[in-house]
């Protein structure tokens, strides 16, 4: 631009300005209107559309299709046309050139012409760029439409990322046969929390499958995820799962679904890993889901590994049972059949079962629904295929896990230990055999039996452990697990659960709870013995709970405070809020009873404490150094002790609680400290002085 052109422009601009308008209010008014419209538009978008938030970032989920914000889509699309080594052109070269052109625009277009009709090159160039950007953006949206609103995604991977990955990293290597479900549910190692509080059983199953068969999870997302939720299928009926995967489109339930014949697409290995995902090779879980419905929950197998493998894989085919009608009377067959259907209906058949059947069937009763089938099976023997041929259903990993679990679990039954623990911890409320009875904590309440078949079959081990460990505060059961402040560790709780499982086949109790004896009014002592003593000791000496029968405790809380603690419980400890269970009168009585504990224990010498023999030596040795001639309370002689002091009298005969002397010694003076300043007197010395006051503070 030449100098005269510049001058000409400036002059013309000055003229334009003279003809123009002031910025305020004319221009500013227009600006304000447009800004207001913008703001209303933003408000509308924020209100009607909102700011989207997808699922939490999941670095493990590589199946996610990344999409940049829409105004970068054109660049994204551009990159597609420069694959491989050309990428640098689309990613770096072209954007850099565009940017340089943009910045250099005033230097390149230096003519004095401003009207668009005189600048075809710039106008055409920038129009092409704008159209190009719009076309690329549209293409990008069309070619890769944004993911559907239902972000199915990989739910299990997300679950894993959120809960496991922070400590375990992207994958966990688990030794074959680990009971992963229980490890996750109970958090049985190091600093791992018990996840059953946060995750559902299905989620834990899915995680177990994910950890042991990540490939299966991917296949699930790919082939099944469109229609199925993981939680619907995981840990499902293995026979059906196997059938569905083998048959593919032919599977009955798949009739209506529009699925390709993926039974052809999926290789045998992929099927295996899909099955391993849906039913993790976790022996305990496999047993619980697939075996316990017939074999009960307690595992009792005594044989070697190879036999067990054969038995499980052959299933019903292995049953090499003699036709018992040749050996037994008809009445014996009937009795056995009745016993098999319902053990409690035919207690006499126990011996029969033990001598003829237990050798192969163990202490487990082969369950049978009806008498006729059982009778037929016993009478004819042979291979009666009640048991599925698991070898055709389980993957080899699942089979190995099941075999290992069965062998391991059958060894350490721990039933004796469980019996002992049950007697110590549970029997006072639940009875020796879990038969229940009146609730010692809740008047008029009956504790239902926990050893009926009905109770045990409807609760899995995880539930039982959780109940024991966390207690049931609503029903007056305090937590027993050490993690919740109770006395039992995980192994001990396992032993109790094992004992309870041993009842399942032969429930010791079958009567309905209504038959139990009518409730009796409960005394504080009964309540203490049944409930409090578990943690605080039978005589209040303290176990996992604090000691209740000491001077220190007695002086620490007033009756009201004690009442409040029992009533509302103490958070973070096993002390639950008993106010939900006990009446106020009962708590009052308990407070009185607990007070009695400390008195009965700590007054071994009910003989009167003597002033001259017991109290004077203490006062002389510990107090008189200061409390003599210095003014205030004088510790020298009965007269002085009883009458001197700024807040005299410091001794109120018969009432240690209100006596200042006692309060100073115990350090319970409001705004006061403790006497002597050098530290609290020995307990027995305090006891003597308190007793002396309690007995009337006589000059004896």
């Amino acid at each position, binding site marked *: 631009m030449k100098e005269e052109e510049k001058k000409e422009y400036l002059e013309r601009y000055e003229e334009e300005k003279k003809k123009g308008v002031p910025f305020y209010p004319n221009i500013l008014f*227009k600006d304000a209107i447009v800004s207001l419209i913008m703001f209303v538009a*933003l408000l509308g978008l924020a209100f009607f559309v909102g700011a989207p938030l997808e699922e939490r970032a999941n670095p493990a989920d590589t199946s996610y299709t990344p*999409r940049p914000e829409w105004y970068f889509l054109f660049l994204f699309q551009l990159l597609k046309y420069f694959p491989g080594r050309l990428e640098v052109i689309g*990613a770096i070269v072209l954007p850099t050139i565009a940017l340089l052109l943009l910045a250099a625009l005033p230097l390149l277009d230096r003519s004095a012409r401003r009207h668009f009709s005189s600048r075809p090159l710039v106008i055409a160039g920038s129009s092409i760029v*704008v159209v190009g950007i719009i076309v690329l953006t549209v293409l990008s949206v069309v070619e890769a439409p944004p993911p559907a609103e239902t972000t199915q995604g990989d739910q299990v991977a997300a679950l894993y990322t959120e809960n496991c990955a922070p400590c375990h990293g992207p994958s966990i290597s688990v030794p074959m046969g680990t009971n992963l479900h229980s490890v996750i549910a109970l958090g049985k190692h190091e600093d791992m929390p018990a996840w059953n509080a946060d995750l559902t059983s299905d989620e834990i199953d899915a995680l177990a499958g994910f950890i042991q068969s990540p490939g299966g999870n991917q296949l699930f997302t790919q082939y099944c995820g469109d229609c199925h939720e993981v939680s619907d299928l995981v840990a499902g009926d293995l026979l059906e799962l196997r059938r569905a995967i083998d048959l593919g489109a032919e599977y009955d339930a798949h009739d209506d679904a529009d699925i390709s014949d993926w039974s052809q697409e999926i290789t045998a290995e992929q099927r295996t890993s899909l099955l391993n995902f849906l039913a993790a090779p976790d022996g305990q879980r496999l047993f619980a889901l697939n075996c316990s419905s017939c074999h009960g929950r307690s595992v009792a197998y005594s044989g070697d590994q190879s036999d067990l493998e054969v038995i499980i894989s052959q299933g019903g085919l292995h049953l090499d049972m003699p036709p018992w009608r040749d050996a037994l009377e008809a009445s014996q067959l009937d009795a056995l059949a009745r016993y098999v259907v319902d053990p409690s209906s035919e207690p006499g058949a126990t011996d029969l079962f033990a001598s003829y059947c237990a050798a192969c069937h163990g202490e487990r009763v082969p369950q049978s629904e009806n008498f006729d089938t059982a009778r037929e099976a016993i009478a004819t023997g042979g291979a009666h295929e009640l048991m599925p041929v698991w070898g055709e259903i389980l993957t080899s990993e699942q089979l190995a896990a099941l075999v290992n679990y069965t062998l391991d679990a059958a060894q350490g039954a721990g039933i004796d230990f469980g019996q002992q623990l049950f007697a110590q911890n549970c029997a006072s409320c639940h009875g020796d055999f879990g038969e229940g009875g009146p609730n010692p904590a809740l008047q008029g309440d009956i504790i239902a039996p926990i050893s009926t078949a009905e109770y045990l079959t409807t609760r899995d081990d995880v539930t039982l452990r959780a109940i024991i460990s966390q207690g049931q505060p609503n029903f007056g059961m305090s937590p027993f697990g050490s993690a919740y402040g109770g006395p039992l560790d995980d192994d001990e709780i396992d032993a109790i659960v094992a004992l309870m499982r041993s009842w399942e086949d032969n429930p010791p109790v079958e009567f309905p709870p209504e038959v139990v004896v009518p409730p009796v009014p409960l005394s504080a002592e009964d309540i203490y013995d049944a409930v409090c003593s578990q943690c605080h000791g039978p005589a209040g000496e303290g176990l996992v709970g604090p000691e209740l029968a000491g001077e220190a405790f007695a002086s620490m809380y007033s009756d009201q405070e004690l009442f409040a603690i029992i009533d509302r419980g103490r958070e973070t400890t096993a002390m639950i809020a008993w106010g939900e269970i006990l009446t106020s009168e009962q708590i009052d009585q308990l407070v009185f009873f607990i007070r009695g504990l400390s008195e009965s224990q700590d007054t071994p010498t009910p003989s009167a404490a003597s002033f001259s023999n017991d109290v004077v030596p203490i006062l002389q040795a510990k107090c008189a150094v200061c409390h003599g001639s210095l003014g205030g309370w004088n510790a020298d002689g009965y007269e002085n002790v009883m009458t001197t002091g700024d807040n005299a009298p410091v001794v109120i005969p018969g009432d240690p609680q209100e006596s200042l002397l006692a309060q100073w010694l115990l350090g319970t003076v409001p705004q006061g400290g403790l006497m002597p300043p050098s530290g609290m007197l020995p307990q027995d010395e305090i006891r003597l002085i308190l007793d002396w006051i309690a007995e009337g503070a006589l000059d004896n």
Partner: protein
Amino acid sequence: MASRLANWLDERLAWRQVWDAIFLRKVPKINWLFTLGSATLFVGVNQAVTGILLTLYYVPTPDHAYNSVQYITTEVTAGWLIRGLHHWGASALVVLTVLHMLRVIFHGAYKYPREVTWWTGVGLLLIVIGFGFTGYLLPWDQKAYWATTVGTRIAEVTPVIGNWILRIMRGGEELSAVTLARFFGVHIWVLPATVLLLVGAHLYLIIHIGISAVPKREE
């Protein structure tokens, strides 16, 4: 009273001069397209205000970023609105900046004597894009994580210094807590500071030189 106070202040601050220079200056007759710049500024202020409010609750760590965004959206009073305004304001800012730039190109307003104004504008466009790129990661959701993974990977194809740029952006080889901290720091400190400088220069030049007039056919 008010006029006495105004006079008192004027003697000391000379604010009337400033007021006259900014608001009472004469401007050539212009059309509605010329409001795009001020609309851009307005949305920029909207981003600043809502952004500051968001930082009151946002936690820039992978553990808590997502939860804090969820918290803002669901728990904080009008949090959904603040986030919505910030989210849509970001798109609006990009659109308005580009439209404003196209208007300038169309009118040849980058020519003498407004070349420097143009350069500050190009700088501002880059910063708006930088805001969009860094802000995109902050919610730490799937979209954020993967878009940034890909976005930073694209930078890696730069010849020679590609990997170096990638590691500077990510604070390591992988996208991590460091990346989030860096993006957050750039988004709320580095870019706003630069934007203040450039917007200040941009506005000063506009007022000093004057808004360009609509070119006539013979120009």
